[in-house]
């Protein structure tokens, strides 16, 4: 700053003092706005606010009005958001969503079982699109075959191939698995719903498999039916099957969950036997977690697992099981030891009402909260 500038400044201060000495004078300084100018400015501000609101609605609320964000952390569950349905169309809400999975790009695929469709959301819960409709692949005499590739009949389990994004769906009443592209284009169905699968299968007339859950890892697709686990390649060629009725280690009774570790260990939720079974690549039992229901009809509150359903393996190797009758997520180590339990029964965000499935992506889980008619994206904390 030059000396002249400093002097000018001092002169200004002096003038101000002098002016004060003269007493109050009407100020001739300040802004004057015409009505037109004021309207223009405020209208502009409103336009900016409107645009901001639209952006917020689109990117934060998503296209669905059935998204609830946040919620308090409870019982080790930190809810991120919940989705009650796409919020549009003639079926804006889910009807008993029994499975949910993360896609490769963070999308969330929901098996909306009661509505015979798959609903797809972005990573923030914005509804993107849906695919699938009701179709009967195995009509009984007197009924029509209404199935074409892509139609579903009580879809349950759903998982996405992390390598290519292919979506695999357990098409329960059609006795098959169906594969779709990440954008919902039907690719193929397997096994043949009208043929016996390997040494035996559970579909109508003993053909096909009444598949409840699926998993995909390293080029192989795994599926469970009433008493067995099947291993296919991604084209549907049967590679292996194991499991049988009974209560011996490895026997199964209505399994409703399957997950596979990077090492190839297959974890099966032996639902009606209230246990999780870890099978090695050879199909032999490595360990089991849980105890068989007792003769009082199970449901002992102290049981390690009460009704294990869907399961997943996290990136750090933990096995997370959705316990439908325990109303919680159970975390196990790869050695079958209990890490922690998360969640509690209820209808608030972060609580469960017969959780039927869980899938993991990074530090997030997505849970098919069946009887609350929603899926929840959440994080596990503090345990």
């Amino acid at each position, binding site marked *: 700053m030059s000396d002249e500038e400093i002097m000018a400044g001092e002169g200004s201060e002096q003038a101000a003092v002098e002016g004060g000495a003269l007493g109050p004078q009407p100020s001739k300084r300040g802004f004057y706005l*015409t009505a037109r100018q004021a309207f223009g400015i405020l209208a502009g501000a409103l336009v900016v606010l409107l645009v901001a609101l639209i952006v917020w609605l689109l990117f934060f609320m998503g*296209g669905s*009005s059935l998204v609830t964000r946040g919620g308090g952390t409870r019982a080790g569950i930190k809810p991120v958001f919940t989705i009650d349905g796409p919020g549009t169309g003639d079926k804006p809400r889910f009807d008993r969503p029994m499975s949910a999975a993360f896609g490769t790009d963070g999308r969330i695929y929901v098996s909306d079982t009661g509505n015979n469709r798959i609903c797809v959301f972005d990573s923030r819960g914005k509804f993107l699109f849906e695919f699938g409709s009701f179709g009967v692949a195995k009509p009984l005499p007197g009924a029509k075959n209404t199935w074409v590739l892509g139609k579903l009949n009580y879809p349950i389990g759903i998982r996405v191939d992390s390598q290519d994004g292919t979506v695999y769906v357990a098409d329960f009443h059609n006795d098959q698995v169906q594969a779709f592209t990440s954008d919902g284009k039907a690719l193929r169905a397997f096994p043949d719903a009208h043929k016996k699968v390997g040494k035996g299968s559970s579909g*109508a007339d003993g053909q096909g498999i009444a598949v409840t859950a699926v998993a995909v890892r390293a080029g192989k697709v795994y599926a469970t039916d009433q008493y067995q686990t099947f291993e296919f390649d991604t084209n549907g060629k049967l590679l292996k099957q194991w499991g049988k009725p009974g209560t011996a280690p490895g026997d199964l009774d209505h399994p409703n969950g399957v997950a596979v570790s990077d090492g190839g260990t297959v974890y099966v939720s032996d639902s009606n036997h209230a246990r999780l079974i870890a099978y090695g690549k050879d199909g032999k039992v490595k360990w089991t977690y849980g105890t068989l229901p007792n003769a009082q*009809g199970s449901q002992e509150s102290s049981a390690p697992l009460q009704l294990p359903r869907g399961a997943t393996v996290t990136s750090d190797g933990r096995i997370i099981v959705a316990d439908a009758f325990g109303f919680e997520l159970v975390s196990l180590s790869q050695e079958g030891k209990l890490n922690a339990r998360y969640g509690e029964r209820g209808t608030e965000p972060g609580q469960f009402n017969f959780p039927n499935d869980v899938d993991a992506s990074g530090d997030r889980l997505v849970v098919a909260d069946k009887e609350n008619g929603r899926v929840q994206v959440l994080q596990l904390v503090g345990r």
Partner: protein
Amino acid sequence: MRLRRAIPLLVFAVMLFIPAFAFAYNEGGSVTSSLTACTACHGVTAGSPTTGTVDVSRTGPHANYTTTSSKCGVCHSVHQASSANLLPAATASAACATCHDGTGGNGVYGVLAARGLTVAAAHRVDKTNVVPGGDAANGGPATVSFSGPGGTLSCDDCHSPHGSSVVTAFTSDRLRTASYETTWNAGVRPFTSSALLKQRPGVYTGTPITEYGSNWCGACHQGRVNHSMGSAFNHPVESTATAATPYIYRNVPVLSGSATSSVLTLGAMGRTNGGYLMLQAPAEPSSQRHPPICQQCHGDVRYVGKVADDGQSARPATFTVTTPNGTTSTDNPRFQVFPHESTSPRFKVESNDDLCLNCHTTMSLP
């Protein structure tokens, strides 16, 4: 102030934008069960879990509550439940489907639609409060108040989920019954179940009905059990109104085997088609001729066999149940979901005159 004059314009501008905000926001197998699979939950009354006798009185979370059991919390939530009766779903029937949807065992409702068949008759839970033949005075329909939403029929109108005050256990047609007896327990003990049927179903408040038979159906369908109601008549039906000790589902005249026979023995209707054929007297093992019970005409669809034209002998069709819910087309009977759903109107076991000819043979007609 010019600014003051601008206020109405600003208000007008804001009002123009308000609807935009509102409209931008959308408000809108071949593998079958084993005995151990049964005994794992139900336990045994005798023998080992692999060869013993299943304790059928133990029915999962539905009965046998003790100080050491922990079953209530499976279905009921004390706080923040989804329904007034503290169940997990909005209605009792929806709560039942939480487990009974086919993924944990055999399904009940939806079995027919899943295979593309049209449901021609159903006890439509959560949908109807009209009872066909519910008017005892004239046999017409009656509107009643069941326990479902809006007074509609609910699963718990017929079933007690707690196993409380249920009918005497009986042999049914279902696969698990057939498999158990034919595979693991032949001749040891009939597999029976009450199906948790209430002794006072629906809105019935009379004397408890302890046996599954015509009286049980008539608790709701009151206008169907009397032969005459003055100006209207029904086909005669066996009940306590017609006999001191009426035939019931677990005790009717049955033709055994699948060969032509004239020998009837008293026994259960379940697991045989021989109870659907009625010979002319004197073949009936009772000195008094009885009319049929409801279930001898209404049941799962089946081919029951043929009565000889003279009505003195009959050839029952082979009873074949090989898959859950009768999805195998050669099974006889089919579906095993009576009285929930049927492909046959009014749950008739056979269609057309085929049904009538099971009793009214051509030579017996006047």
